């Protein structure tokens, strides 16, 4: 049995909230996302169609929660990794990561023009021995708050590191 990946230092990052990340919900972002996943409903593209259907503006398609506002001081221009993200130290470095799943809870509608702030913390870290060998299952929880201070969505993400 290999040495456990999780150390006391690994667990120290649980619950530590990241710096807030701003997301802009824009018409262009919604149209690009809708196009990328194949939506054909006009409400994602045409403001008049969206308003006629009763929305404030173009609504967010499932899975889209705005585009993170890029800041070259905070984010690596090539990899898009946040430079100041808390580092999770394990007993040996883990080179690979995969997305394991995502759950989005929508608390109210999100439309073009909204400005969201995402705050993320690691909720749990588990170790497993499975098809990929020794690996970590890392669950994060993010809250998205809009310009009125209302929490509009809560996202649980599961990542696999090995």
């Amino acid at each position, binding site marked *: 049995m290999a040495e456990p990946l999780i150390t006391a230092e690994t667990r120290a990052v649980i619950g530590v909230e990241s710096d807030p990340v701003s997301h802009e919900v824009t018409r262009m972002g919604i149209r690009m996302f809708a196009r990328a*996943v194949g939506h054909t409903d006009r409400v994602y593209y045409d403001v008049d169609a969206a308003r006629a259907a009763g929305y404030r503006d173009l609504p967010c*398609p*499932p*899975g889209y929660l705005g585009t993170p506002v890029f800041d070259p001081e905070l984010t690596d221009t*090539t990899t898009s990794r946040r430079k100041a993200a808390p580092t999770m130290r394990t007993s040996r470095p883990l080179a690979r990561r995969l997305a*394991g*799943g995502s759950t989005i809870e*929508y608390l109210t509608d999100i439309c073009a023009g909204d400005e969201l702030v995402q705050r993320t913390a690691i909720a749990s870290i588990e170790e497993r021995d499975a098809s990929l060998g020794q690996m970590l299952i890392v669950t994060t929880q993010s809250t998205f708050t809009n310009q009125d201070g209302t929490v509009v969505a809560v996202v649980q993400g599961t990542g696999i590191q090995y």
Partner: protein
Amino acid sequence: MADVKVGDKRDQVVIERVTRTHIVKYAGTSGDYNPLHHDDEFAQKAGYPSVFAHGMLSMGLTGRMLTDWFGAVALRKYGVRFTKQVFPGEQLTAHGEVTAIAEENGEKRAVVHVWTTNSAGETVVDGEAVAAV
């Protein structure tokens, strides 16, 4: 949507053939530039036969089945596990089945088992959605 009931089903082809172009479009829109998704050499060094789609792309494609069914802002919750990688060339079909109808926050909601299968019939995304109906 008042007539939605337990057992109602929907199957929808959400993409006829995943191409590298679809994957790159998703990388651009999401800002997820993990090279596993667009650099074949990198993906092969990591032990995969080729690049593969972002899990969130499969989730977004599957979401289209839900909004076509329930409307653009009906979703209250949408969660999936990515159970298998999706490679270029595959066709994806999203499936939904209403498993419960519940009253919550003063509105009627449908709980839907959601899953998506590839050309070989293997499940690539599996989860649950809750939609106002």
